[in-house]
């Protein structure tokens, strides 16, 4: 069978789409609305800290954020390429997927910082 990168990118893209659809609304609801507005009592900082510093949580969150980033980048790539007609395939691809690398690195830093 021929090796092509597209199937793997697509898998990350569609996996990211499913996970984003499942988890983003929940996370956004909790951390952007419910906790700050006091609808739900927020967990204590120590408690959250303990959850995030667990290596398993770290892995799950890191994986979740990276595939969501891939999903966003992939969509944005087609928005630029097909939507805005910026016909520089390599440049657009490098910028979009490059942003994923930067984002993944930032995730690593933040989550890593939290697990210290």
């Amino acid at each position, binding site marked *: 069978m021929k*090796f*092509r990168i597209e*199937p793997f990118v*697509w898998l990350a893209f569609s996996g990211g789409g499913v996970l984003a659809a499942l988890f983003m609304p929940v996370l956004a609801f909790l951390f952007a609305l419910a906790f700050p507005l006091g609808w739900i009592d927020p967990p204590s900082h120590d408690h959250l800290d303990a959850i995030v510093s667990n290596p398993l949580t770290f892995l799950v969150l890191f994986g979740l954020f990276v595939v969501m980033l891939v999903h966003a980048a992939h969509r944005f790539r087609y928005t630029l390429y*097909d939507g805005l007609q910026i016909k520089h395939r390599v440049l657009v691809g490098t910028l979009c997927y490059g942003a994923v690398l930067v984002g993944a690195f930032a995730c690593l830093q933040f989550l890593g910082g939290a697990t210290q």
Partner: protein
Amino acid sequence: MADEIRVEVARYRPDKDREPGWQEYDVPLRTDWTVLDALNHVKNEVDSTLAFRWSCRMGICGSCGMNVQGEPRLSCATFLTDYAPGPVRVEPLANFPVVRDLVVDIDDFLEKLPRVKPWIIRDEEKSVDDGEYLQSPEELEAYQQFSMCINCMLCYAACPVYGLDPDFVGPAAIALAERYDLDSRDQGARQRLDVLIEAEGVYGCTFVGECTRVCPKHVDPAGAIQRYKLKAAQESVKAFLLPRAFR
């Protein structure tokens, strides 16, 4: 109801016109008349130079596709009364070069179709003496939907990806590949996968879904393409990520 409707028809006669233009015709508005009936009325009674394709007049041959009011439609299955009081615009199918008036050049589609090998492929052919390849009703059902395609190319006219990148192999061809992959008598899935995994194959599709919306035969090419993407991804993961023993 008014007894006439105005039809605005895109005209292009390469021997006379430098570029396409519009011509208006008033035709009788009858409840049982389709856009194709209107065009035939024009051709027979008003202007015999108008060029368009048709054959069966019953949604089977797939040759009468046109953009009606901007939407790819079979003109033999599109009723004038749906556009009353008019006017109704009739143009050649989008995304294809125009040969003359409403006739488009379909060579690109005809070149792409055989690339996905839409026929039954066997590792070893049975001899005639061994009898026919039998199939259960369930096995027929597995691919039947994708076999309803009449090659009308409305899905190509609706597909923005094909419009932007004519190398994209396109909805109907991929749906047909799926039709044969799902056929219990066929063993050619791997050969088709090698064609469709290329950049101009299934991954060119950005899942706009217009193909499925306009398909007059409810083939759901967008669904076929999504299934194919998943299949190609599963096979790629198996072939390149799993250790040999698990493949």
